[in-house]
């Protein structure tokens, strides 16, 4: 009993750990739900690039002294829509134009960071996540936005699936497939910004695609894969949080590493059979 309470319960006598747990849970649930689309539609590069591109928005919010969400979420949505447009209209390869845009924006963000001297902003926290530092307001914003994202995914499930599986067929029966694509990208931007708190810009991909990819190895039904992915995402996020508390490890990398280990184990077990 003592071991259980020491290991599992003790961390949560601290308020910052409770807040971290709530955000980790929400990110763990939400990322793989959307990740199922990211994996099957081949949007992994897009997700990675998008997470880097929101940096100027975040830093701008720091500079004018407002909540970073206020900069990052609109910036993320704007960039997602712009890149969706680039992908559809690209005269050059879509990868190239999106890559150029996002690398440039990330560089801009890092340069802007050098103007924040005197503010408590650390590049390392932004890159690798610092879930232990989230405020109550962050928790509320994350919960509200996560609720909104999950509600949209639930309400438009059949439309999103149709447009992802057979875009032409969906178009023929009159679904606004372009609008659905843009909406999915906007949701992706929101989820990425929320996940940056937990795992940082560099490791967002680990929460977004790794649990989802693992789930497709385990179940072969799209809605079930969404839930299985969420389950694995929550395990990774929460267990990563415990690891970071008990062994004084960075929380974001711990979560990302666990998600990767789960993936590797599933691949190994499948191969062994």
């Amino acid at each position, binding site marked *: 009993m003592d071991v259980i309470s020491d290991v599992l319960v003790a961390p949560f006598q601290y308020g910052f750990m409770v807040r971290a747990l709530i955000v980790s849970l929400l990110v763990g649930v939400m990322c793989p739900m959307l990740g199922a689309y990211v994996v099957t539609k081949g949007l992994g590069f897009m997700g990675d690039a998008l997470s880097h591109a929101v940096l100027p928005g975040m830093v701008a919010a720091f500079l004018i002294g407002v909540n970073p969400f206020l900069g990052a979420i609109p910036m993320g949505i704007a960039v997602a829509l712009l890149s969706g447009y680039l992908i559809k209209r690209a005269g050059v390869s879509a990868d190239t134009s999106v890559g150029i845009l996002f690398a440039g924006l990330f560089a801009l963000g890092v340069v802007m960071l050098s103007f924040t001297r005197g503010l408590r902003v650390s590049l390392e926290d932004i890159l690798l996540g610092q879930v232990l530092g989230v405020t109550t307001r962050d928790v509320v914003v994350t919960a509200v936005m996560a609720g909104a994202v999950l509600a949209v995914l639930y309400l*438009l499930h059949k439309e999103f699936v149709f447009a992802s599986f*057979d875009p032409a*067929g969906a178009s*023929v029966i009159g679904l606004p497939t372009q609008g659905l694509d843009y909406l999915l990208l906007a949701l992706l931007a929101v989820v990425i910004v929320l996940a940056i708190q937990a795992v940082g810009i560099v490791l967002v991909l680990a929460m977004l695609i790794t649990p989802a990819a693992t789930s497709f190895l385990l179940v072969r039904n799209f809605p079930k894969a969404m839930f299985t992915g969420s389950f694995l995402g929550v395990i990774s996020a929460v267990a990563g949080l415990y690891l970071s508390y008990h062994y004084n490890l960075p929380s974001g990398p711990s979560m990302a590493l666990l998600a990767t280990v789960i993936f590797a184990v599933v691949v190994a077990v499948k191969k062994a059979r």
Partner: protein
Amino acid sequence: MTAKGDANSSADIVKTSGNGDSSAAEPSLLVEDLVVDRGEVQVLNGVTFSAQSGHIMGVIGPNGAGKSTLFNTLTGLLPAREGRVLICGKSIQDSQGSVAFVPQRQNINWDLPMTVWDMVMLGRTRRIGWFRRPGRADREAVEDALNQVWMWDRRNSLISELSGGQQQRIFIARALAQGVDVLILDEAFRGVDFTSQEVMTLVLQEMRDAGKTILLASHNISYIRKLTDECLCLNRSVVACGPTAEVLVPDVMEELYRSVDIYRAYESEQN
């Protein structure tokens, strides 16, 4: 023989077409002076034809003749530069939901795991409506459609695990569940196993008898001859259009393929 001269004679065939049972009804598909570009290239050049409900119309022509472009335009995927399309008297935009397209396989995202049941249920998307979930009528329509293509037993299988022919049957089942007036099939019979071919033939004939209009592109002339009532011979513009037996003759084949060899080859295959 000039293309123009032949276009005129094909127009005559259009006027005299009809199997006698069409009772001068309004055509379910009316295409007039359709001009469609793909990029800089004008692919369809003044295409005019009509199809009656309760008919299967074959669409033949050499590669690059514009068959897929025509289908993409009829389904609203490609805009037309000029011309008019009426589906059951309505524009393409207003008739969305009453047209279904059995696409070529490469347009599908096979990475997304999809069961046979879920796939056919997609056909109900519009009827179910935004934000809502399938009801009993939707489940019954899916069950009926799966039974009609003899795929009820495989309802829990993944589409990606099925043979090409079984996949085509599922696409047709989706159109059945959707309750379409016009069904368009692009090379749906290519590389399809014998059972699927038989089942698809039966289902298409049932749909025709139920008053649907079916457009079927194929390179297999003997199949077109066997299954279709009318035939549209397309090579950027209409070379001929009319009852299949009247259209599939050496003169038209010569004009269409610049060679009668193709036609003769299929003829000898049949005998």
